[in-house]
């Protein structure tokens, strides 16, 4: 399949590419946003969204409508569309789509929401504050959930049941009968003994494909916010680097479309981590360990970022790279300026739109997911401005098409 891949692409993936392009046509346009911005209440917003591709997705919601409910329903719609595509995908598209959802789960805070929509019947277990050991268990267990939904779904069900049971101090004799017989595994008894995520990893996760991502993260430390932050970012770094490697292995137009996007993502993570770490207790060495290496900043830029002490030094590092220099120039923290994160989001949208210019590659799926995410962010921002009656910054959304 190394010559003329375009000739063979449609055999396995033609339907899905057609589908994703059709869905892309339903992404809100600038005219739609202009309508939404003029709404006075959230009910108005719901009415205007009915005339778009979203249709009556809020029809069954109890009034009064809240922004959080709107956000949930928007995400659900996107997940349903994605799920449909994933179910019809052959390899290697199926693995590619799995990589995208892994990122969705890890990168955002939507773990419980996505968990319950990707895995019907799943209820998030005890969600304590981040300092509670149960938090990381839930994080891990949900990541487990996504990776092995079909084959090990019963096993995961049981693991989650045992974990939550242990957190609520239930005895294993009480829990084991409630486990699904199809999902029993030898280490099931060991889950109860695992008091910390470290033990959980050593007992169970080490046999799963997720183990590779966890190897450097979980150790026998206490889980305080610092370590959880480090775990979260290390997981994301591992995920991004393996996704990048996967795309380069796929080669062809997919690599041409995806690699710039992932390189930008890596560099953006490096910048944001550096800037947000000023004034915190994160040491420079720890900070350097969180930078993904698959971007254009590696290795010199990352080394300089690791040494940076303030925003000016970060800006100087960015000045060596033309597009990043442009992004930093447009950003500022005065009231009228765009923030740096806004500029990064804008650039991301630009890169993702470019993916649709080429045909017969998988980048369109990634770009579609990211653009829908941005659209969701836009609508939620507009809804928040309407709900808080603070319309000064309502135009801060990023128009996509």
């Amino acid at each position, binding site marked *: 399949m190394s010559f003329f891949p375009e000739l063979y692409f449609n055999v396995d993936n033609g339907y899905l590419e057609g589908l994703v392009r059709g869905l892309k046509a339903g992404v809100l346009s600038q005219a739609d946003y202009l309508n939404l911005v003029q709404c006075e209440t959230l009910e108005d917003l719901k009415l205007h969204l009915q005339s778009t591709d979203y249709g009556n997705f809020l029809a069954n919601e109890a009034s009064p409508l809240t922004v*959080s409910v709107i956000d949930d329903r928007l995400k659900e719609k996107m997940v349903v569309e994605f799920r449909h595509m994933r179910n019809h995908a052959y390899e290697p598209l199926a693995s590619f789509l799995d990589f995208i959802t892994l990122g969705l789960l890890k990168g955002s805070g939507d773990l419980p929401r996505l968990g319950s929509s990707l895995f019907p019947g799943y209820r998030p277990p005890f969600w304590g504050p981040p300092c509670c050991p149960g938090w990381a268990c839930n994080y891990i267990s949900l990541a487990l959930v996504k990776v092995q939904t079909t084959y090990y779904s019963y096993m995961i069900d049981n693991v989650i049941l045992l974990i939550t049971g242990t957190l609520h101090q239930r005895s294993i004799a009480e829990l084991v009968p409630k486990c699904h017989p199809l999902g029993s595994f030898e280490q099931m008894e060991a889950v109860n003994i695992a008091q910390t995520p470290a033990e959980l990893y050593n007992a169970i996760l080490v046999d799963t494909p997720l183990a590779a991502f966890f190897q450097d993260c979980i150790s026998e430390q206490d889980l305080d916010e610092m370590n959880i932050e480090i775990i979260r970012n290390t997981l994301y770094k591992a995920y991004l680097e393996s996704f990048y490697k996967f795309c380069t292995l796929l080669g062809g137009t997919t690599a041409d479309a995806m690699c710039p996007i992932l390189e930008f993502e890596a560099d953006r993570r490096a910048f944001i981590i550096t800037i947000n770490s000023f004034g915190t207790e994160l040491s420079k060495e720890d900070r350097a360990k969180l930078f993904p290496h698959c971007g254009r900043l590696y290795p010199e830029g990352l080394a300089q970022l690791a040494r940076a002490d303030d925003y000016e030094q970060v800006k100087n590092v960015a000045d060596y790279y033309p597009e990043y220099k442009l992004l930093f120039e447009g950003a500022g923290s005065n009231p009228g300026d765009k923030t740096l994160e806004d500029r990064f989001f804008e650039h991301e949208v630009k890169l993702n739109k470019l993916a649709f210019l080429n045909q017969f590659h998988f980048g369109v799926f990634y770009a579609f997911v990211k653009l829908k995410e941005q659209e969701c962010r836009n609508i939620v921002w507009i809804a928040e401005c309407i709900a808080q009656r603070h319309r000064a910054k309502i135009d801060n959304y990023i128009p996509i098409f």
Partner: protein
Amino acid sequence: MAAPDLRAELDSLLLQLLQDLEELEAKRAALNARVEEGWLSLSQARYAMGAKSVGPLQYASRMEPQVRVCTSEAQDGLQAFWLVRPSAQTPEEVGPREAALRRRKGLTRTPEPESFPALRDPLNWFGILVPHSLRQAQASFREGLQLAADMASLQIRIDWGRSQLRGLQEKLKQLESESA
């Protein structure tokens, strides 16, 4: 007391009352502005971090307050409200009322004289690497807290001033009816 003295006192009391009212209005407007800013910054943080990363999932239902409101009696019998951060707390504070930092009220507790453990910054509920907008939100809400305590003290003074005013007016009426 002679009527002119009474009237002079009435005037000064009225002026003081009006001044307090003006200050209260100004503080109220400032508090509204701070709270609005704070909520908008929270929305901006949600935009940058993801809508579910800044929400009720990040904090426990039981939390330690960072700031306590204490009342004290001034020399003219008026109560004043003070914000006290536990690191600067002196053991003899009596009757503290808890002010939860921009969240729902925590449990009421009797004051404990033992030293508090190092209080964790609520900002860290959302992670260590939080965006600038979240820090701005925290700053806005903190300023708003101080304003709220000042407003409470002012309102007590205004109420007291009004009751004094009424009392003086009655006395004046009595005096006038007696002299007539």
